[in-house]
């Protein structure tokens, strides 16, 4: 029995000896982070540093456990994408105290001096890109607009929505768009800069909880409620790819919806297929390879004891964190091949064209 | 102060749909043993639960006067505080706790707010010794049989400040020796000035120990009488059931055929508790015969019955079993049932009946295939007919066959249990304590049914701890002791003394 256990554990053991770089990602439940893991592993294959990737599964507590385990193993650099940007402060402080360099990955840990670098796609910019896409495809007045957001419990959902609202709001105010599914948003349609509380109110109503089930139900129920004149050619702000597909499925089934534009982000394989098949309109592609490359570059310099000077810096509430920002790209049916296949991000054979 | 330690006046207690007590008057003299008797469901236990505060003051009408003072109990705690201690029909012990914890449960010995376990242990041992028992009090209750458990209950009562001791059917699950022992203790307590109220269906015991007898029927006080030589069992029975029963054990002409059932070198090992529950058993049953199995508590009769009835407890078994001349090997209880054996459990509430289900579903559950149509579906109409037939022929008292068995009195539950097993049309019927805790009237009816059955050719094994019943009903008697069958007696040979000799033979 004991032998079996030992053997079993040994199989899963990646390495037990000291690790140079520890990476902590938010959750394996979202395909996005699975991609990050894969990209990290392949990128680090080319270096002679040892790494270990751990997932926090949506829990700040697990995240702390992960970091503590990595510290016990003597990492020198920590790359962390916090589950909760605020709650992670104490965790990165621990790392700093242990003399470890901290790179905040994609999401910035706030209110702490312990973050050394920040590599990111700008999350607000993601929202802006989504909003811009809808605005660009709308003509005339009174276009029906359906809004959806991520989970109320996820700060990123607020950043995405903030970006999208920034772009959409003027067009709502001038009558290009008509909000169909949120009375709260409707009430605030003349306000460009929403407070956290106001955004909360809206998201409360249009949340998908990042869940397919909730997203689809909500879309169906919104369509039930909408009058025929609220349909026709519609515009849908969907926060990410998973929810975009669920929402698109619901809209596709409605006889009165003649056409729809629906946004997304992450360039999940499943959504790329949807884009190819014309069921999803766009996705915001965050080339994880760039982010990974930046993160690893910074890490390698840090391991060698070199401090980089970066062009940008973000205020995290306690200090200006030097930052490297990667570009995001909007993927549509027209450019999908160029952006994703030609760049070897995905293989041609992964999809049915 | 009056000569009465307790007076209960005009007590009326209603449950939804039942008037359990109707203006009952009940007086107990200081220092006496007062027996309370009556048919099943006549309200004895309810009266005692009113007395103990289990049924709170306000949930009944009437008044209770104890030692000259009016009492209003809001909980059992209140009545115990002034010295009324009740041992309930349902034993109030916690299986997972030790003897000493159980004895002092609810009135722990404390020292600075903490329980003093050492004192608790030694005090427990002391009370038990007073009753003539030396036990390892750190053992859990679940390791003991009902006999010992009953003694522990009494020890629990004595460990409190007891003035009036109420015993609700303490001997119903005890055999002769243990019963006698218990009655001896009650008499002993009387000498120490403790008043007792004793509820029992065993008239012989009552006549033996009672100073006064009160009879209840249908929630009414029928009569209170002094116990003296002039009173006979028959008289009491008449008051209890409202009619005369001339012979409790009805006559029967035996018509015994060839051997139906036999076990040889039978052994059963309980792997969970690592002990033999049946060490050696050789016995047989003939067609049309009633075979009694007598013995003391813990003799292993129930285990023997289970082990032949397809072994539901998963004992390790060795030996041979023959049925209708053929050697059989039952893999499961359903095998045994299919072969023609039925077993009416001694514990109708625990494992005999499904209390939340109605009469008809309980009757058919062991043999649903008998009323299956199209090879698949239960014919519910047929089921109703079956149940109604049994209700009539066994005289089950209920307002319909759709009544939950939970709400039936003990005797009627026993009849449902019997009906359930008659419905499998067994050739061999095993009755384990068939009349435990049921009143004489119902007992008489069950005996009559047994006679009917053997007349039709069925064979019966009757496990019983009541010697009069064993002697009154059996064609042949086996005696068990310590997991062994220690002897066989024919109807003619069998006497109380001979059985007792075999029952203590190890």
């Amino acid at each position, binding site marked *: 029995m004991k032998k079996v256990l030992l053997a079993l554990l040994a199989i899963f053991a990646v390495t037990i000896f000291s690790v140079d770089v520890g990476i902590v990602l938010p959750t394996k439940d979202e395909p996005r982070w699975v991609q990050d893991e894969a990209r990290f592993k392949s990128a680090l294959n080319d270096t002679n540093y040892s790494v270990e990737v751990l997932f926090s599964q949506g829990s700040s507590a697990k995240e702390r456990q992960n970091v503590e385990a990595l510290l016990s193993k003597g990492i020198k650099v920590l790359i962390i994408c916090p589950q909760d940007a605020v709650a992670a402060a104490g965790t990165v402080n621990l790392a700093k105290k242990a003399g470890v360099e901290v790179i905040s990955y994609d999401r910035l840990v706030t209110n702490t001096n312990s973050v050394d670098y920040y590599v990111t796609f700008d999350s607000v910019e993601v929202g802006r890109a989504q909003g811009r896409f809808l605005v660009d495809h709308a003509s005339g007045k009174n276009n029906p607009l359906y809004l959806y957001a991520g989970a109320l419990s996820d700060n990123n959902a607020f950043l995405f929505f903030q970006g999208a609202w920034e772009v959409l709001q003027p067009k709502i105010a001038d009558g290009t768009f008509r909000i169909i599914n949120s009375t709260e948003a409707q009430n605030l349609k003349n306000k460009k800069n929403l407070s956290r509380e106001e955004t909360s109110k809206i998201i409360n*109503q249009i949340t998908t909880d990042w869940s*397919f089930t909730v997203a689809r139900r909500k879309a169906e129920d919104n369509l*039930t*409620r909408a009058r025929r004149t609220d349909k026709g050619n519609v515009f849908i702000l969907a926060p990410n790819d998973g929810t975009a*597909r669920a929402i698109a499925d619901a809209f596709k089934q409605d006889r009165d919806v003649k056409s729809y534009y629906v946004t997304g982000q992450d360039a999940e394989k499943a959504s790329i297929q949807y884009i190819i098949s014309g069921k999803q309109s766009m996705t915001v592609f965050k080339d994880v390879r760039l982010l990974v490359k930046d993160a690893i570059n910074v890490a390698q310099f840090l391991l060698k004891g070199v401090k980089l000077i970066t062009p940008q810096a973000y205020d995290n509430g306690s200090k200006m964190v030097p930052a490297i920002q990667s570009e995001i790209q909007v993927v549509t049916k027209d450019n999908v091949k160029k952006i994703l296949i030609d760049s070897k991000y995905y293989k041609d054979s992964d999809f049915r064209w | 102060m009056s000569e009465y330690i307790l007076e209960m006046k005009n007590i009326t207690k209603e449950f939804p749909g039942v008037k359990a007590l109707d203006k009952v008057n009940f007086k107990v003299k200081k220092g006496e043993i007062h027996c309370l008797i009556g048919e099943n469901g006549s309200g004895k236990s309810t009266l005692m639960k009113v007395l103990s505060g289990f049924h709170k003051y306000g949930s009944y009408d009437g008044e209770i006067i104890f030692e000259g003072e009016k009492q209003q109990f809001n909980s059992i705690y209140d009545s115990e505080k002034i010295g009324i201690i009740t041992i309930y029909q349902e034993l109030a012990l916690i299986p997972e706790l030790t003897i000493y914890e159980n004895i002092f449960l609810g009135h722990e010995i404390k020292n600075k707010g903490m329980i003093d376990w050492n004192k608790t242990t030694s005090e427990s041992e002391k009370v038990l010794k007073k009753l003539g028992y030396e036990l390892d009090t750190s053992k859990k209750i679940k390791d003991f049989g009902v006999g010992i458990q009953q003694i522990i209950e009494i020890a629990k009562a004595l460990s409190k400040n007891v003035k009036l001791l109420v015993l609700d059917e303490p001997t119903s699950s005890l055999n002769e020796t243990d019963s006698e022992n218990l009655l001896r203790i009650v008499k002993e307590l009387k000498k120490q000035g403790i008043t007792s109220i004793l509820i029992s269906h065993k008239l012989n015991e009552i006549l033996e120990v009672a100073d006064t007898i009160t009879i209840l029927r249908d929630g009414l006080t029928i009569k209170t009488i002094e116990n003296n030589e002039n009173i006979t069992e028959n008289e009491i029975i008449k008051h209890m059931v409202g009619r005369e029963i001339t012979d409790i054990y009805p006559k029967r002409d035996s018509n015994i055929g060839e051997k139906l059932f036999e076990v040889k070198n039978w052994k059963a090992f309980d792997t969970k508790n690592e002990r033999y529950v049946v060490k050696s058993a050789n016995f047989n049953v003939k067609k049309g015969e009633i075979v009694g199995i007598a013995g003391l508590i813990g003799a292993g009769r129930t285990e023997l019955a289970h082990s032949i009835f397809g072994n539901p407890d998963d004992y390790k078994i060795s030996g041979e079993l023959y049925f209708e001349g053929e050697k059989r090997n039952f893999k499961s209880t359903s095998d045994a049932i299919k072969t023609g054996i039925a077993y009416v459990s001694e514990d109708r509430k625990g494992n005999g009946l*499904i209390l939340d289900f109605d009469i008809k579903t309980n009757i058919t*559950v062991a043999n649903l295939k008998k009323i299956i149509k199209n090879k698949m579906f*239960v014919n519910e109409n047929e089921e109703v007919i079956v149940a109604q037939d049994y209700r009539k022929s066994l005289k089950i008292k209920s307002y319909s066959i759709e009544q939950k068995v939970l709400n039936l009195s003990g005797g009627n539950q026993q009849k449902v249990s019997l009906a359930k097993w008659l419905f499998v049309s067994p050739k061999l019927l095993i009755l384990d304590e068939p009349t435990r805790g049921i009143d004489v009237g119902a007992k008489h009816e069950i005996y009559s049914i047994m006679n009917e059955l053997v007349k039709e050719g069925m064979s019966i094994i009757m496990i019983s701890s009541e010697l009069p019943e064993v002697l009154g009903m059996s064609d042949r008697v086996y005696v068990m002791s310590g997991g062994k069958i220690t002897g066989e007696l024919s109807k003619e040979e069998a006497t109380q003394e001979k059985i007792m000799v075999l029952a203590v033979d190890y």
Partner: protein
Amino acid sequence: MFNEIGTLLKKNIREYGMYIALAIIMLIFSVLTNGLFLSARNISNLFNQMGYIAVLAVGMTLVIVIRHIDLSVGFGSGFLGAAAAILLMNHNVPVLPTVIIVTLLGIAMWLVIGFLVSYIGIPSFVVTLAGMMVFRGALLVSTEKSGTIIILNDTFNIIGNGYIPDFFHGEYIHITTLLIGVLIVLFYIYSDIKSRNNKMKYNFEVLSVPVFIVKLILMSSIIMYVFWILANYNGLSWTVVIVLIVTLIYHIFTTKTALGRHIYAVGGNPEAAKLSGISLNKITLFVFGSMGFLTALSGILYASRFQSATPTAGASFELDAIAAAFVGGASAAGGVGKVTNSIVGAIVMASLINGMNLIGVGISYQYIIRGAVLVAAVIFDIKTRSKAS
């Protein structure tokens, strides 16, 4: 006649309690949404939204009846859905074999659970909590390679999204659906009359002719109304067809067959059932096996509805299914619980979400209200029950 109806209602209040609760909720939402709640389209959506929970609730009812619980059905369903997706997409297995393999896999896995619960004697709460973890891990492993697995198979996807074809091509109304409704009503009337005649043959008491006719008309109208509503939208969806068939089979199974009865006997008093020749272990195995079958079905319905398998598929389905069963009056003390009522329980809980979505209640308050209604429904059930007995 009114007297007779009165006593009838009183006698069966326990059973009608559920329906009354449902009616109240539906009424409230109808008013609050200006009738939208009861519109053809919404009712159709409602049923489709709860399909994969409803089948779980059916199986969970039996699990609860035998005094157990199953926390593993959520991620179990997610994992089995992923298994289907992998078979379909990575191994190009056709739909029917996929469905069969996944179903067998589900049964096999739950037989293991049942074995641990019955033969080994581990509390079901523990085994299925462990199962929940294991299936969650397995689901993550299955979706690790490609993230969400998208299912490109129209036949498969129609299970969770499609409607039965209308052979008559009604323009505004789905004639096949209406026809099926009529057939069901006819069958209902036929079997009710037959059972009444049968009872008369046995000389049992039966409803008087006028009351009987009132009952037939009432029930028939309700059935026809629902089918009419559905016919006014897309007709019967395959999901609804599957749920109906599962419910019907389980209803007949639990009320009319010996095995079904034995399940309730085991729940009512395991010891007594054992001494009645019923094998607890086999019944437990069977009930968990059935749970596995239905979990597989639920996984297929979900994967098909979302045309994909995701790493979080199935999260917390178990809680929805358990809530449905309890709202439907199943009792944790064992022996009590009807599959039809659990379906109604599932409809109650789904109506709640649907109704609140229509009104636009925020998610935070939705959680609070769902919790409150769950408790209220069970209190209501307990109260009507104690009155009825």
